[in-house]
């Protein structure tokens, strides 16, 4: 019998308990509440608070990438890199652009 090409995108997930995702969920929750506590519970100077919560946000973004978004999987790493590069470009355009546009009122 001729084996026909089946173009389905989703391959069946390996069975078993999704430990990675559960750990990721709890880490994300912990980081979120930690940021909340740093901002509301501690009365640090504003620049330090901002630095700390931005740092926590970056850690959380990495958790998202590795634990939920299949960053290490896939056949072609160039797709991943293009996606990340475009994401960084958009994030930079937005943050830097906004700061520049609104600089006159800061």
């Amino acid at each position: 019998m001729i084996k026909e090409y089946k173009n389905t995108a989703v391959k069946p997930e390996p069975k078993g308990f999704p430990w990675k995702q559960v750990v990721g969920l709890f880490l994300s929750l912990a980081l979120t509440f930690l940021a909340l506590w740093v901002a509301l519970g501690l009365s640090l100077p504003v620049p330090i608070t901002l630095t700390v919560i931005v740092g926590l946000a970056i850690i959380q973004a990495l958790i998202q990438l590795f634990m939920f978004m299949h960053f290490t999987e896939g056949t072609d790493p160039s797709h991943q890199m293009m996606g990340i590069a475009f994401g960084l470009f958009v994030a930079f355009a937005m943050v830097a652009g906004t700061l520049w546009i609104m600089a006159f009122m800061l």
Partner: protein
Amino acid sequence: MIENIKAFLGDFFVTGDPMIYGADVSIALASIAIVVTLTYFKKWRWLWDEWLTTVDHKKIGIMYIIAALLMLFRGGVDAILMRTQLALPNMNFLDADHYNQIFTTHGTIMIIFVAMPFIFGLMNIAVPLQIGARDVAYPYLNALSFWLFFFGAMLFNLSFVIGGSPDAGWTAYAPYAGPELNPSSVGQNYYYIGVQISGIGSLMTGINFLVTIAKMRAPGMTLFKMPMFTWSILITSLIIIFAFPTFTVTLALGLFDHLLGTHFFTIGGGGSPMLWANLFWFWGHPEVYIVLLPVFGIFSEVIATFAHKTLFGYATMVCSMVAISILSFLTWLHHFFTMGNTAPVNAFFSLSTMLIAIPTGVKIFNWLFTLNKGRIEFTTPMLWALAFIPNFTIGGVTGVMLAMAPADYQYHNSMFLIAHFHSTLIAGTVFGVFCGLHYWWPKMFGYLLNEKLGKWSFWVFMISFNVCFMPMYFLGLMGMTRRMYTYPAGLGWGPVNFIITIGAFGMGVGFVIMAWNIVWSAIKGKRDTTGDPWGGRTLEWSIPSPAPEYNFAHIPKVTTRDAFAAMKEDKKRGREQKPKPFEPIHMPNNSGIPFIMSALFFVAGFGFVFKWYWMGIPGLIGVAICMIARSFVYDDHHHIPTDEIERTERATGRLS
């Protein structure tokens, strides 16, 4: 007690305007008519099994298009009401508040609930068929996207009879939209929540089609052998994925200002009203390209098909779209040049905006060169495509005029601007979706739309469009600004406005002819027995019309661009491949969860609109329960047996 109930109902329902009462009655009558018809013909089961629970991309596409046409009717009625009010000086047809609400709902509905779903409908129908796939990558998610859009749209549309419509424009600029100047919040909450619910669906559609196109192309179809429409959807999906999260957050922050008393966009309390404009347009400008790039794809297909040539400059078409996708994230400030930014900021965004005209111009020339020396066939879809080129170019050129920051201080928020963006959105998006609708109609339903009526609707609509929007440029230069609900006599605006109103009604007539064409053709339309009524070049025309549930009995093998044109050529030369035996086809199961979950989103949204947390929070809990229920569904697919495939193929005359 009775007084309390009366007072509540008086606030709850919109009262006092005879037109609204008329709408109440017609909504009630239409609902009763639908329920009675479905019950009388015992069609409830059919509705649930075939449509509400379907995950078939073709049916979802059809539902998107039906919803978009209904919303186009609503948005069009809004436009005609506005134009009636403005037809003569000092008119009293609408009062100021009502006029504000109507231009707000007109804009929001036309962009979010007409342009986007119409395009999503066409891409749902065409993209999997063009790449030789049997469905999208995530069929269940696709159904969820549609129902989220649908219930978001219904929530937003409810506002004009229950609670009151938003009135801060489709851009909902702070501070007017904020809690300080809009303390009742209800109308504005409808905007934030209705658009948010449908926006979640849009984001998921973007992800879905990116994965579909990246992963599910037929063997041999490399990226540079994809049809141009598929390319345009790939780029559009990318823009959706990167632009929509901004909007999600912006809408949420706006809602927080109303519901939770935060100060993101307020005047006092450290808020910044300008930040709303900034964040809104960071999504809003890419959004313009989200509704334009797909129609560029449609025109590329249609022009190539009816010029009977391959598309000119395939690679430059792709490069232009990639360039547009990057530049679209760098131009957002040109929507508020006049808000007090520094000169270097305005200069940068002025330049980046003009830069976009280059890749767009490249595309225009590519279409012209595709037409050059082609055997042009003037079918209805081709007429829409040909009319697009000059009309859209006028919109594009006036866009470059607006892009010059110093000049924009003159044009800003005048009717010149209104004429500009209608020239791009109507001559681009609307002509494009009408073009795609006529082009792919036989693939959706198995019969063609009538050509004569189609051409009538085209000419009436296209000429009226110019009657409506050409004078509007001059009206803008004569000093009339947008969003004025009336104007005094003696400024010389009256005659121009009257001509514009004639054009607006003419476009309404064009739409009615098109609706009549749909009804007429459903009864008497010419059957498409070949599956290839236009002499198409891409894979969607290689299968019967309407496409069977599984699309392709065999997944095609692709060797070149315009894959189906090449296959037809091979067949002519007698190099046809031998048919292989059928194999059972793996298909996703239908599911009712997307519908129920989106309905619960609607319930939750309605609760939050009125700050009824007792309704909103249980609604969200219901949404969470639906997600949990879905995660326990293991039996999510079935196989179509070979004898059923054989029967279906035989019925379409594909097996002898």
